[in-house]
């Protein structure tokens, strides 16, 4: 793994650009607007886009905050990548626990367990594939 300090000068990864998170937030906002508009509620879509635009502004103008820089791009160094990895793993664990719990509840209630069975299956397959890929790469 190449430390950021050893990279060729001027070749920062794209996710460390100050524009990355603001642009990504606006992109998500556009997706949300599109989904709401297709679903027949363009007003809700405008609101959702507005929320994401505000978030984009927070990331862009909050450059003096170390936390926002770490979350939003320029300050995303190895320590933030580790934090992000651990936080993502924790969130994934919580999510799969909720999915399994909901599935068990659905089954115990005499229903077929959908959509939680499908969600759980996707999570399980994704984990196995990730382990297989990462194992070969390491």
């Amino acid at each position, binding site marked *: 793994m190449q*430390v950021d*300090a050893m990279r060729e000068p001027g070749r*920062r990864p794209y996710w460390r650009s100050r524009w990355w998170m603001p642009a990504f937030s606006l992109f998500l906002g556009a997706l949300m607007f599109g989904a709401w508009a297709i679903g027949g509620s363009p007003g809700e879509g405008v609101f959702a886009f507005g929320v994401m635009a505000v978030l984009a502004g927070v990331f862009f103008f909050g450059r003096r905050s170390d936390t926002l820089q770490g979350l939003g791009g320029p300050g995303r*160094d190895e*320590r*933030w990548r580790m934090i992000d990895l651990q936080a993502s793993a924790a969130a994934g664990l919580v999510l799969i626990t909720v999915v399994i719990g909901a599935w068990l509840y659905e089954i115990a209630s005499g229903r077929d367990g959908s959509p939680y069975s499908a969600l759980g299956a996707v999570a399980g397959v994704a984990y196995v594939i990730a382990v297989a890929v990462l194992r070969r790469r390491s």
Partner: protein
Amino acid sequence: MSSPLDTPAVSSYLYIAMRNEVRRHRTERNLSQQQLAEAMDVSRQTINSIEKERYTPSLPLAIALARYFDTTVEAMFDAGGRDA
């Protein structure tokens, strides 16, 4: 008299407390944390966490720090003992 049976379990080496001399080297050169962070292309928070021994840098970053201060990784980072 010690014997091979006294060797600590291998897993205990994973919990060695890592001390470092980053702050001492930085202050000797009158550098701020921000300046060192910019030189290493990491955040000031990362330098602060390393100096407070809350975060152990990756091997490439440790090597970069040692080179920057014209010393060795072994001299800069000291695994003092199993007191983590």
